């Protein structure tokens, strides 16, 4: 097979994108806009999947795009295009301007205030191009899948192992004088296998992801864990309906915190569509819980020196000792609420829940008897009311020891109560995402089964 390496994004591309954003802003002003903001991006990458030892897909990606928002006083319109030719760019600005003519004047609309914009852009060490080439990527994926298939005789089928490597560059600018560029890479290795015995089939997976390929978990480890996680689910039983303590394993515990973010996001608050309305400075989590945003972590998967509006991102406590200390705001929602932006246009950056001392076995011992949840499915979460009901799979635990796998059950409660009933957060922090958490133990939930 021919090597088809992926070229690095050249420095000149950054200059070209900066120039393009500048031109777009000028074009907007020429067309009569009082203010404008624009972002331009390019990205490229390679993904390969190997299944049962043979190549399944080799995918080359290459994307570019431009988005612009124009303001005519307090009216605004947005448009985007993947065609960066001059004519298309002008048409895009014109399309945004045309929309702005029909939107209502909104006192809170506009660019982020000039004083909130990032003045310096620290290097967060997010750009580590790898360029493995298809052959090398295939070799890694093949090795990983082989480890999983050899790990246990019951691993009899596979959805394959994948390697992907992507790099991207994004430039954002606005007519308040901000122009910032950010380049970043993201590499990952994943493996999903299927185990079978008389009782039926189960599938599970493991993955690793990092900015720098040197920070990836080894392919042996990914393959071994994929196999372990799959085989341990075989012969799962259904439980009877009961109240029970629930321990969310770290990879699924992050979902609890993303529901929290959904409820303290500015757009949910000013629309009064949140179960955490009016809870600022009040206890929303159990005492001792700390949620901490760290936008400037070097190599962090959620790191960013400025947000989607050019606003400087800052380290802060969102929750300390269980008390809600701040919201997740962009400048629009901040103005709606009579507050200041928190630099969260586009979301939170590396939200971390302060880990405790116990590892997973320690938490199991602490729970003594209850449900360890390792998989959640479905979307049964209502941000307006906090009502929570999701499908689950995992393990029944007695005397701090895993007894047997369970499936086809649901767990339900209300997030307002669940957050206050956090008994412990594990030391087993999962660093593979923008939300970093250990396993989370909840005092009590309703489990529905047979």
């Amino acid at each position, binding site marked *: 097979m021919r090597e*088809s390496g992926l070229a690095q994004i050249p420095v000149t591309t950054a200059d070209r994108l900066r120039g393009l954003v500048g031109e777009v802003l000028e074009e907007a002003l020429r067309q009569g806009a009082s203010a404008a903001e624009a972002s331009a991006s390019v990205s490229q990458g390679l993904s390969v999947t190997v*299944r049962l030892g*043979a190549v399944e*897909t*080799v*995918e*080359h990606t*290459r*994307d570019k795009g431009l988005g612009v928002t124009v303001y005519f006083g307090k009216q605004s*319109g*947005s*448009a*985007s*295009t*993947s*065609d960066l030719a001059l004519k298309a760019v002008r048409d*895009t600005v014109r*399309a*945004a301007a*045309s*929309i*702005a003519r*029909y*939107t*209502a004047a*909104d006192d809170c*609309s506009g660019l982020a205030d000039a004083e909130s914009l990032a003045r310096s852009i620290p290097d967060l060490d997010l750009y580590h191009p790898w360029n493995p080439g298809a052959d090398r990527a295939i070799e890694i994926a093949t090795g990983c899948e082989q480890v999983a298939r050899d790990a246990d005789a019951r691993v009899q*089928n596979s959805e394959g192992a994948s390697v992907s490597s992507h790099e991207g560059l994004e430039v954002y600018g606005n007519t308040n004088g901000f122009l910032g560029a950010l380049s970043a890479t993201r590499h990952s290795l994943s493996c999903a296998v*299927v185990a079978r015995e008389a009782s*039926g*089939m189960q*599938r599970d997976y493991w993955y690793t992801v990092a900015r720098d390929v040197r920070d990836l978990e080894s392919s042996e480890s990914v393959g071994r864990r994929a196999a372990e996680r799959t085989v341990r*689910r075989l012969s799962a039983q*259904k439980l009877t*309906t009961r109240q029970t303590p629930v321990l969310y394993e770290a990879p699924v515990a992050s979902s609890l915190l993303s529901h929290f973010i959904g409820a303290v996001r500015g757009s949910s608050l000013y*629309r*009064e*569509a949140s179960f955490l309305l009016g809870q600022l400075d009040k206890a929303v989590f159990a005492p001792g819980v700390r949620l901490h945003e760290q936008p400037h972590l070097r190599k962090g998967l959620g790191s960013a020196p400025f947000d989607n509006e050019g606003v400087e991102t800052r380290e802060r406590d969102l929750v300390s000792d269980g008390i809600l200390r701040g919201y997740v705001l962009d400048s629009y929602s901040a103005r709606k609420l009579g507050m200041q932006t928190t630099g969260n246009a586009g979301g939170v950056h590396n939200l971390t829940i302060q880990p405790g001392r116990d590892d997973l076995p320690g938490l199991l011992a602490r729970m003594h008897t209850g449900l360890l949840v390792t*998989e959640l*499915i*479905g*979307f*049964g979460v209502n941000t*307006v*009311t906090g*009502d929570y*009901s*999701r*499908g689950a*799979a995992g393990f029944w635990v007695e005397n701090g020891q895993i007894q047997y796998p369970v*499936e*086809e*059950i*649901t767990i*339900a409660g209300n997030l307002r109560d669940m957050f206050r009933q956090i008994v412990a957060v594990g030391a087993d922090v999962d660093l593979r995402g923008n939300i970093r958490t250990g396993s989370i133990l909840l005092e009590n939930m*309703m*489990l*529905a*089964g*047979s």
Partner: protein
Amino acid sequence: MSGMLRQVHDALLDPAGIGDGEISSLMARLLEYRLDFADLYFQYSRHESWTLEEGQVKTGSHNIEQGVGVRATAGEKTGFAYSDDILFPALLEAVTAARTIAHSGSSFVAPSAWRQVRALDLYRPLDPLASLEDGEKVKLLEQVEVEARRQDPRVKQVMASLSGVQETVLVVRSDGMQAADIRPLVRLNVTVIVEQGGRREQGSHGGGGRFSYQDFLDHGAASAYAREAVRQALVNLEASPAPAGTMKVVLGPGWPGILLHEAIGHGLEGDFNRKGTSAFSGRIGERVASDECTVVDDGSLSGRRGSLNVDDEGTPTQQTVLIEKGILRCYLQDLLNARLTGVAPTGNGRRESYAHIPMPRMTNTFMLAGKHDPAEIIESVDRGLYAVNFGGGQVDITSGKFVFSTSEAYLIENGRVTRPVKGATLIGNGPDVLTRVTRVGSDMRLDPGVGTCGKEGQSVPVGVGQPTLLIEGLTVGGTQGA
């Protein structure tokens, strides 16, 4: 060349100076390698959306997406590359990258003449974005808002959105076929928040399909969506905690057909079954549902959200019987999986865009009407749940476990629908849930045109439908123990 193919060539290829000659030469380059099949997928899409909140249309957006996906397959292997420029040199680069999946040395000759797929005619090739003046779109949303607010003083927030897309596609295949399609799609959605005594609840409704914005005005559909969203929200203000445990469940007609999409639809997709990773693998001819159940996937319904004149590989869509009177008959196929398993494609090869690889996907999936009076179905239940509206669902196709979550449900007590209960997730096992369907209603209905299906990171519009159904036992994930 037919009108449609000519029109699409004019729109996609002519501006780039690409004609049949250039296409033939790209295909010839691909076929210098030992491939079984290759295709080029040209796409140009314009999308807009307008959103209203707090009584005003504050924002709108317009997006253009264009590009070409190049796919080369050999055995089970797929090489894929794309370009977001429709330009010959960029295409040549994508061709060179995609074909490296195979070894050099051609196995068959590139087509010298092109033939045209006979596509269906399920919707007009109109441009929804131009079907109303921008000012009229704003006015439509404002009317929706007024209609919602005048229903009840407890309505505190109204959010409404209107979106439209026109997608122009051309599929060029190594077997010498070309297929073209111009696909309109519109959607109107209303969400309201109501408040009473400090308690807040929401309700949502909407609809759409492959037609123009005008259709939202013609039969008062837009206003009806607003009224329905308010009705649902007000019902939820009265809802008490949902029960927890396994019980009889009656599902209402229409959108609750998401049951079929999750419980069996995904598990019958050809890729999972070729690989043997689905709980339905190797079960053609076996009983997977009660006699009462016949389930089809049909991409050939006129104007529906999940319908396509041709799928994204140029195969005309069709009605495929998946389950006939309880017996599993067929899987859903794209070209690759049909070829590898030696069956005919079913017109289910779909992709989110040029930048995505096609795979077997559902179109409109529904159960045919049965013989029971829906009212009698409810009367037959002593104690159970009556669920008429749902949010999303999900499935683990290997274990077969699936969920879908209610957004409007009631208790049934002594054969009567009594009080509303809060949203709860229902969980079951795909391969046996339909075996416990004991009554199928005569009131088959399709959903209003709101479904979006996600698989391996790709989203495509779909439809679902069903008549009223009684399931003898399904686990209801409420908070209230027996």
